[in-house]
């Protein structure tokens, strides 16, 4: 017999990216929720971390957030579920989180508990085989289907888990789940589905909780919210004393970070929010009904994220103050580019100029065409297969702005100001090579699940 309702606490929209705020977390924890769930990943951070298998969140912040959840969940004896470990959800990040849980358990002398973890990384050979078998690995958001060439450019691939590995882990009676790359909403949905609640409400519950206090107002990040699912509806409540979940804030959140507010896609189906009804239930709580989960017809499709290395990179910083140079900045850049090309002709390199004060933020989307600033900052980004060439590209590309040959320039002792002499090593450049879906026979075939006892 299923429970009449289930309450899930979400402390943070991206665990560890900025530390969870403790006051609202403990206010929420005191109400003894049935589950503690949180996602720790995002593709917002760009392709670098996945490609280089690193985190952007500081180790200590991630551990801090895990510690809060672990202590509260173990105290109550309820499950704690984490998805997309360490920003990217690669295998090394899962291992790192498993180690953190072990450390924390030792630190606090916790009684033994069952930890289930799963990996999301995808072997290139698995996809090569699919392509060779003419199985379409469909591109999303206007991308073409995956080719072998694109695949080979890819350094690392993760599959985005739906509810399946989480439900499997709960069936294994996990106390703590540490997941590889996951669809954030699926973590919460899995708990609700496992407890016997309808998919319609379970997926919506996940959708509304995944960014924690972003569904509340006024705007305050990293504060705890609690979602309650029944067999009839979903309710979401802000825990921070000054935050409320209002019809406007919850409906507004439906739009956040997605192309449109009506559909959210998962491995195994889509959540249709077209007919969502929002009501103010009490001061801090909004009630939502009318959402529908539409299971996919045919094979489950699992989303893949892939990142490939584009090259080593350096950055140069250049200032321009002479109004004549400001007006003629494009000519100065053309000169510098020509000098790089003259020196490195035939070699592989990329060179980008970010001109702050002109269109450094918006590039071609910038509608303000005339320069209104009295000075410009130019960030020169040079890339090449080796560090040596990348440094040379960036150095010539920066220094030649100083030597730009403009006919009427007065400052013949140099046409650019450098805050430092030289260029700076920057993280290597990566690109999202994959934003695709692969059809699978078994929704679990891309995820391997392991269990261990901690404590």
């Amino acid at each position, binding site marked *: 017999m299923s429970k009449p309702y289930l309450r899930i606490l979400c402390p943070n929209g991206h665990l560890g990216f900025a530390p969870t705020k403790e006051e609202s977390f403990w206010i929420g924890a005191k109400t003894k929720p049935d589950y503690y769930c949180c996602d720790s990943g995002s593709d917002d951070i760009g392709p670098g971390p996945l490609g280089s298998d690193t985190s952007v969140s500081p180790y200590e912040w991630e551990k801090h957030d895990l510690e809060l959840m672990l202590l509260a969940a173990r105290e109550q004896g309820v499950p704690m579920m984490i998805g997309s470990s360490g920003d990217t959800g690669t295998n090394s990040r899962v291992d790192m989180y498993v180690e953190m849980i072990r450390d924390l358990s030792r630190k606090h002398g916790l009684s033994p508990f069952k930890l289930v973890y799963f990996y999301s990384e995808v072997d290139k050979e698995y996809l090569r085989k699919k392509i060779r078998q003419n199985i379409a690995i469909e591109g999303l958001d206007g991308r073409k289907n995956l080719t072998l060439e694109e695949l080979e450019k890819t350094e690392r691939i993760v599959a985005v888990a739906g509810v399946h590995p989480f439900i499997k882990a709960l069936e294994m009676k996990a106390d703590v789940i540490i997941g590889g790359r996951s669809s954030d909403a699926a973590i919460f949905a899995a708990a609700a589905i496992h407890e016997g609640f309808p998919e319609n409400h379970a997926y919506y519950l996940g959708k509304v909780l995944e960014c924690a206090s972003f569904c509340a107002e006024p705007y305050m990040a990293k504060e705890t919210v609690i979602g309650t699912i029944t067999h009839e509806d979903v309710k979401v409540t802000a825990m921070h004393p000054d935050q409320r979940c209002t019809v406007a804030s919850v409906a507004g959140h439906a*739009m956040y970070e997605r192309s449109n507010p009506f559909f959210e896609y998962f491995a195994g189906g889509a959540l249709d929010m077209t007919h969502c009804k929002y009501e103010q239930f009490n001061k801090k709580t909004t009630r939502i009904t009318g959402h529908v989960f539409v299971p996919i017809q045919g094979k489950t499709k699992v989303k893949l994220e892939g990142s490939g290395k584009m090259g080593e990179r350096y950055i140069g910083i250049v200032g321009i103050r002479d109004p004549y140079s400001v007006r003629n900045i494009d000519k100065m850049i053309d000169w510098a580019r020509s000098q790089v090309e003259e020196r490195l002709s035939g070699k592989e390199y990329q060179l980008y100029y970010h001109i702050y004060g002109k269109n450094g933020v918006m590039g071609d989307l910038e509608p303000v065409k005339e320069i209104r600033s009295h000075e410009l900052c130019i960030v020169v980004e040079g890339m090449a297969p080796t560090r040596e060439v990348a440094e040379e590209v960036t150095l010539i590309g920066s220094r030649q702005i100083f030597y730009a040959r403009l006919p009427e320039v007065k400052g013949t002792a140099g046409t650019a100001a450098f805050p430092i002499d030289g260029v700076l090593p920057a993280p290597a450049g990566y690109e999202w090579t994959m934003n695709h879906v692969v059809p699978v026979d078994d929704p679990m075939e891309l995820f391997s699940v392991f269990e261990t006892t901690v404590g």
Partner: protein
Amino acid sequence: MKTKRLVELAKTIRSKNAGTDKITFDIIFREKKNYELIKKSKVLTKQSMAKLFSIPKERISDFVEFDPAYAVKFTIRRTHPSGSPGETDVFGCQQYPPLLDLEIPVETKGSSTARGGKRSSHRVGRLRSPTSRTTLSKRRKRR
């Protein structure tokens, strides 16, 4: 016709990545009245947004008016995935400012004729009733 800038009418104007290949824009209003005003004004359309950002209409993948949130939302495709070499805004969160200054007509057809008439008659110094003079000066003060 009297206008207000979008920034004065909207509660939230933001842009943000929607996945790796798109940037989505949200314009959210606190009051239903302002939301309805925007919808009616037709200042925010797929065409006008394409023009504002100098992009072909085909790059706008979604354009919706979302009644439950009093919001207009549209999404554009990036030319390169987020964070690629040469990136200027990894999160896509600083692409909305051109929306702030869009001028929105704030008077409906009927009232714009009436009020506009009063204002123009004031300018040319024609006699006006004391009532309308009071209303006008009050309105001025509020500004």
